[in-house]
């Protein structure tokens, strides 16, 4: 019986990581008393519970999990979102959307160049129509 399946390891790892950050961040907070509970009591209690639960995962039986996620979508979708966030203040909505669409499309091997470019332009026009002209939001459309 293999207790340390990758699924359980990942679950425990996530729980322990969040618990560690929780404890680290709440370390210096005031616990207070029962009459006047401080800001640190709840975070510390929840972090400790999460820590115990994370350790408890090791007592679970290993079950076959889903297949491992492919790396390519993760890399390109992340790149697309980062590019969008960085390009928007610099290049405006148009450039940010077209560039992010192109990067995003790289995540799938089925994407085609011309089609993707067309989609990017279409999306940029759609967003401009909906958010800028339709809802009247103040988003830069083009580089200043």
């Amino acid at each position, binding site marked *: 019986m293999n207790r340390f399946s990758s699924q359980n390891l990942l679950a425990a790892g996530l*729980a322990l990581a969040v618990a560690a950050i*929780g404890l680290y*961040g709440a370390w210096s907070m005031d616990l207070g008393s029962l009459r006047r509970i401080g*800001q640190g009591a709840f975070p510390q209690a929840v972090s400790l*519970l999460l820590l115990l639960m994370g350790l408890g995962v090791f007592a679970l039986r290993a079950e076959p999990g889903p297949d491992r996620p492919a790396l390519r979508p993760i890399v390109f979708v992340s790149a697309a979102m980062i590019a969008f*966030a960085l390009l928007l203040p610099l290049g405006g909505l148009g450039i940010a959307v077209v560039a*992010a669409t192109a990067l995003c499309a790289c995540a799938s091997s*089925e994407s085609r160049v011309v089609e993707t470019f067309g989609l990017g332009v279409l999306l940029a026009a759609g967003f401009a129509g909906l958010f800028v002209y339709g809802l009247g939001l103040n988003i830069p459309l083009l580089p200043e």
Partner: protein
Amino acid sequence: MDLISNLALGFSVALTPMALLICLAGVTLGMVVGVLPGLGAITAIAMLLPVTFYLEPTHALIMLSGIYYGAAFGGSTASILMNLPGTPSSAITALDGYPMAQQGKAGVALLVTALTSFAGGTIGIILLATLAPALVSVALSFSSAEYFTVMLLGLMAAVTLASGGPLRGFIAVAMGLLFGLVGADPQTGSVRYGFGLPELFDGLNMVAVVMGLFGVAEVLANIGRDNGRPSTNRMTLREMMPSRAELRQTIAPTLRGSAVGSIVGILPGTGVLVASFMAYALEKRVARDPDRFGKGAIEGISAPEASNNAATQTAFIPTLAIGIPGDAVMAIMLGALIIHGITPGPTVISSQPELFWGLVASFWIGNLILLVMNIPLVGIWVKLLSIPYRLLFPSIILFICVGVYTVNFSTFDVFVTLGFGLLGLAMRYAGLSAAPLLLGFVLGPMMENHFRRALTLARGDLMVFLERPISAVFLVLCLLFAISWILTARKARRARTA
């Protein structure tokens, strides 16, 4: 008498041209997103949430709930025609709906779905209109102690019902609670978990968290998976008419399903998924010939569809009457209310009658729109399903980016969305579900606040949670949930050793 005048007020709000238009837009958008593969009701609401911020509160809620039940309905359409359920809850519809479609009875299945959904929804709405105001008088006597224990009960229920067992559910909830604490502490004003980033001082943006966990993670998990091609055959109205025998077969399951769904919907921490699942299980148990299930039994679609639509409506009872969301979708609705400056709680119905009753009336109108739209527009939904995923997923990601950005005009939120998208993907592969996390995220700050206030009022006496009768009842129910974990674990262990 009161009910009738209230409903009249509701319909006067919901029947204004603007409200009707918004209801129609919400239902249509919801159906479009729900039909698309891999996109469920939560994703649909999360994607369109930023758009609704620019409407007035009543209209925003009408639109959001339209999106919600529209998406649930669209998901059923996709499951029946293509065996491509967008959400786990419509996966149950696929069990018998898809075999019916293969037998050439897709049209019948779709119309029965529409009819039973409408029936279930109507029953849920009647309960909402009668029970919610009654519950308010109970909720008005709630002090912080009761608020804390009822939220605890909701979280316990969510933990118990989480897929993968209570321990995994607990981890997800606890993670959500911690993420919810980020930002300024409402009692002392000092910032917690700010890590020196001024963007975190107001807490994590709920829209970014939701879009990451449900939208981005969903897309990341779906890219590269072949979605198959549908056969786009046309359907005529004549083909859609169920025979008289089939209609008679659906009446009892519809009523049973609505009853199950209504009860499940009211309980905190349970969701639409549990409602359809329980209704399906019940039908299978009472059926004279359970072997037909899974092979195209009409009861197998009518009961869960009635159930999930009834639950969809009754889930609004605790959300609107007490201000406590029962599941992830209601958590988003509550968040939308708060963003519009309405403090959810028992006073909402009396202080904003046009909001509550307008919403109730619009639910019914929305359900009617769904019923009417479904019949002539099936062809369009089928066409939508043939959009290749390579065009769909960049559009979804970009829509999420722009939508998140417009909430606060903050590119930082786009990074938060990406972070939660990656977390959501990791959680998926760790067998942790995202819905309990979101519930913890929304309930966490409220629970802490009520816990601290209750103890301050009771001068530090922990017995306050047991001395108040309603609070004690909630705690006993929590204890029952905990006992159920131990019993289930023991049963599983015995089954393994035997």
